[in-house]
């Protein structure tokens, strides 16, 4: 037994459907053949061409190995090169065992295309990029992590070209870089491909010559962080209403600081996060705020940049607005707003409200209509919603006041509670319901009994549950509410 022999060069490409992974595979095969090597490649695209994960596998045998039996399936721990177009796909390849410290050169784009599972969370569902990077550094023999998507965009080409350039530039292919470059062909799109190829090859060579320094985690300076959040909060509230409102925010923040022992890390963190949530809460989005933000010159500049507007082009901007009676009540004086809300609760509403309207915000009429709406800021302090929000803020601040000195861990969780107040209309209503349920079911009982530290994990779980889904199914589970039984009807 024990036969010696050189295994072929084994290359695994990981990509998303529609990114041109097949093109890249064919380029590699062509370049290998041109250089006199025996190459075989295959893939399992299936329906993955529709943006799902997909992979391609290539084996390249020596020039004299005409009779080689090449495999169609990669073996864990036996892949020489992995090239990946996206960081989460790199994680997937590593989780399947294809990256080995003994032999694998890993070339991965650091670009992210978030998966649906990451995007649909009410909070932040993004996969940890730091963990992927760390895993790559630990598991690959050589890891080259660089933003191949950005390099492609800069060269006006596709990621397949920069993946190929990075692969060729890494020096793992048994033929020279010119041989790879030659298969890109002629024509205008080939010129762009070559530019991307060259840029990526150079970028990998730079990485090889001078490995990227391992970035130290930023030093944490809690008092400075708190000061920064407070500065931003004052700025936000001043911009939202007026200087006095900014000072109201500062007063609230000072009260939180006074209640806490900042030498306890959890207390300091609680104060910082509470100030952050407080600023966002105080600057809640009503019609006046939205109209104001939508008519600022810097906003139109941002849209021009985002829409990649070129000189000589003109642009129109349309808003999708659907103000309901509730939003109108929000910005009217308390008594008027309350009367409208009585109508709303009786199912009546207001004429002309609750219909979708298209507003040309960079048109003359649309612009001035929005400016008029923005003017409601002047009566905001007397408005229906303002009164409601200030009352809720006051209750929360009082709870924070009570929790900070005695149970910093509970305060830390409580600081995050306003995070469930998100969105507009139905989404906001669901958030307010969740907030009220957690207040009633967890916070108030804990404050009353004084058993705050015991309740901290429950509170943290409840907030996570409220952010887990729209239907509040997880929240029901966490708060121990009876789950809805299937709607059975006796025949």
């Amino acid at each position, binding site marked *: 037994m024990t036969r010696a*022999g050189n295994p072929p060069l084994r290359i695994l490409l990981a990509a998303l459907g529609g990114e041109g992974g097949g093109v890249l595979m064919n380029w590699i095969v062509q370049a290998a053949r041109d250089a006199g090597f025996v190459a075989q490649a*295959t893939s399992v695209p299936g329906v993955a061409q529709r943006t799902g994960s997909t992979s391609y596998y290539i084996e390249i045998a020596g020039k004299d190995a005409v009779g080689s039996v090449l*495999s*169609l399936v990669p073996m864990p*721990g036996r892949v020489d090169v992995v090239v990946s177009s996206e960081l*989460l*796909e790199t994680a997937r390849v590593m989780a399947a065992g294809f990256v080995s410290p003994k032999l694998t050169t890993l070339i991965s784009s650091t670009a992210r295309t978030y998966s649906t599972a990451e995007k649909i969370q009410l909070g932040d569902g993004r996969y940890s990029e730091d963990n992927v990077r760390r895993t790559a550094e*630990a598991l690959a023999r050589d890891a080259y992590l660089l933003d191949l998507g950005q390099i492609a965009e800069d060269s006006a080409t596709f990621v397949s070209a920069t993946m190929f350039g990075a692969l060729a530039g890494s020096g793992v292919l048994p033929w020279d870089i010119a041989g790879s470059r030659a298969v890109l062909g002629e024509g205008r799109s080939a010129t762009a491909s070559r530019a991307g190829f060259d840029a990526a090859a150079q970028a990998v060579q730079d990485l090889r010559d001078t490995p990227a320094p391992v970035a130290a985690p930023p030093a944490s300076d809690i008092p400075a962080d708190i000061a920064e959040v407070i500065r931003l909060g004052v700025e936000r509230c001043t911009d939202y209403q007026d200087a006095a409102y900014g000072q109201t925010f500062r007063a609230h923040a000072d009260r939180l600081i006074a209640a806490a022992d900042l030498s306890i890390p959890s207390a300091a963190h609680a104060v910082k996060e509470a100030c952050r949530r407080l600023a966002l809460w105080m600057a809640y989005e009503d019609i006046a705020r939205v109209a104001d933000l939508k008519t600022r010159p810097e906003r139109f500049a941002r849209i021009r940049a985002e829409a990649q507007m070129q000189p000589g082009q003109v642009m129109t901007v349309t808003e999708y607005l659907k103000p309901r009676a509730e939003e109108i009540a929000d910005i009217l004086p308390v008594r008027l707003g309350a009367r409208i809300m009585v109508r709303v609760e009786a199912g009546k509403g207001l004429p002309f409200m609750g219909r979708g309207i298209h507003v040309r915000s960079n048109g003359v009429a649309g612009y001035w209509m929005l400016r008029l709406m923005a003017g409601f800021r002047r009566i905001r302090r007397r408005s229906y919603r303002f009164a409601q929000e200030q009352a809720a803020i006051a209750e929360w601040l009082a709870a924070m006041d009570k929790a900070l000195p005695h149970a910093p861990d509970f305060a830390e969780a409580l600081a995050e509670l306003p995070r469930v107040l998100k969105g507009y209309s139905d989404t906001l209503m669901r958030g307010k319901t969740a907030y009220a349920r957690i207040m009633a079911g967890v916070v108030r009982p804990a404050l009353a009994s004084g058993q705050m530290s015991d309740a901290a994990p429950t509170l943290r779980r409840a907030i996570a549950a409220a952010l887990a889904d729209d239907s509040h199914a997880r929240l029901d589970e966490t708060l121990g509410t009876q789950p809805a039984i299937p709607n059975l009807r006796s025949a």
Partner: protein
Amino acid sequence: MEVSFAREIEKLKLGAGETFHGEGILAVTKALLQSGVSYVGGYQGAPVSHLIDVMVQAAPDMAKLGVHVEPCTNEASAAAMLGASIMYPVRGAVTWKSIVGTNVAADALSNLASPGVMGGALIIVGEDYGEGSSVIQERTHAYAMKSTLWLMDPRPNLPSIVTCVERAFELSEASNTPVIMELRIRACHVQGAFEAKDNIAPAISGRRLLAEPAPHQYEQLAHPPVTFGHERKKSSERMTAARAFIREHRLNEVFDGAQGDVGIVVQGGLYNALIRALAELGLADAEGNCDLPIMALNVVYPLVPEEILGFAEGKRAVLVLEEGQPEYIENEIGTILRRAKSPVVLAGKDILPMAGEYTSEVMAKGVGTFLRDHLPGIGNQLGDTAYAEESEALRAEAQRLLAAPVPPRPPSFCTGCPERPFFAALKLTQQEIGPVHYSADIGCHAFATFAPFNFGNSILGYGMSLASNASVASFQQKRPLAVMGDGGFWHNGLLSGVTSRLLNGGDGVLVIMKNGYTSATGTQEVISSPDPALKLAAAEKSATHGETTIEDALKGVGVKWLRTVHTYKVSQMRDTLREAFSTKFSGLKVIVAEGECQLERQRRVKPIRAKALAEGERVVRTRFGVDEDTCTGDHSCIRLSGCPTLTVKTATDPLKTDPVAHVTNGCVGCGLCGEVAHAATLCPSFWRAEVISNPGWWDRTRSRLRRIFTLGAVA
């Protein structure tokens, strides 16, 4: 069609002495022409779509050669095409995705197999099994055995595959039996090379017509009493002839090895992965030279008892490597050995997994166990456990470092897909009326079973959704919903679903996604695909708008409640759905959800736009975006859309810790974001920008006036 095969068509014309470089399934296509086929048919589906697609695009060349090409409406009609070879000495081939396609074709296959064929008949199936598969996991092997069709499973390299195609026709003719050739997904897509031969123009074809039809011969009908004779012939004359041919032409291959005390019998398609496994164990080299004797079965049904016994002779034990369940080949080998009173020990599924792909890793483990049992001198020195530990350790270490499981990334609706808005509307409808029983189907719309939509209570096959809830309707308070595509509707749904429901006067709601093509398989045409005139008239709009073949068919069979709604009208779709679920009308309610496949529409739009831009004409480009100042990061828009270009990004606002919604440059301006924001009363953060290139005098003037009258704010 999604892909252009201009370069591949040139490869089909290669002659003797030239080298073909390309994909496995296209090598099969070339081999068909080299074998002198008169006709080719099939139904699209990964991994064999390219066979039919390339031939359809090469229609003029095929006509020159005299080869008739027919993309069929389903696999049953493709299988029935092979009926031409029963009475005429013509070669023909058909193709589809298996197991599902073979299921649909089963009736025709039985009736074809019974009388047998005069001309060579070949069925090329994409064995959609294991990683990358999109169907239930079953084997085609069972069909070969029960209908007495021969089954080939060639070694996965282009010369072997091409040789097998050519031999398959000869085998078919020598034994009057149709032959199935199964190719796994990776074999269909493998890039390799082979020495081409000249194409052969068939002796009987569209260019060389027969003057007279075949005479009436009752013997050739699948009809009693001759079917009894057919059955006897299958197991006697035809089987005998086939086995003789297989032996004589050495279709199965034996590779000798020094350790003759044991041997391995393997399906041809697994051979390469086996060699890699043996190399890992130190028992084979890169060229396939191996210490153990290997019998590679390129024909897996029928087996040739003499070959099996010859291979087993003098061995202590034989290991059968057979992918999928149950172990048909192993059972047959067991019978052969037992009947011959052979003392050879048989091993297989007792030490290897019953289910799942036989990768090199799986086979290395199995071979290791086998050798320790039966050849301990070598088995005990193997490094297979070291490899198993190494790969396990790699996975464990990766998972430890990554800390959290990697989120799945299934395929989803394309950017601008017209089916997505329908599912947003359905989600909104269900928020009002509560969940309804949802019968899902095969096609792009099955992506709605994934997040963020998570729809579906069952999938029962292609075009079967409506049929599958016939009895559900009888015990549900709310009407059940069935969704199918136009592909599924024409494949099966009209007959199995619609007419059956009408015949029985049943209630229910059916939604037909009319996007104009069988999009999931590569946008092949169906009978209701918009014709060139409609496409020309539609320009940048949806070309399915004026196409009413589906509606006409539904009215023709007697559907009384029928609505056609453009999918991008989300509010209107929601209202129509609400009405369908609440109307007093009892009976089948059909909503045709119309919107042309975005892939096809973009293919038409791009050249139109490029030309207009080049000629200096006014062109409007639409793009959506999200105001991150007003976005609160609740992502409810994403949960109603799932568009690839509607994603998240870190907020620029340092106070916001949760990511905000963001539209990438891939946006095609389909308008769903705005429609959903309105229909669901989501939030005011979406904007639509219309960027006008080569603006006219009035555009420029208006732009200037806007700047002046907004005091420069909108600049």
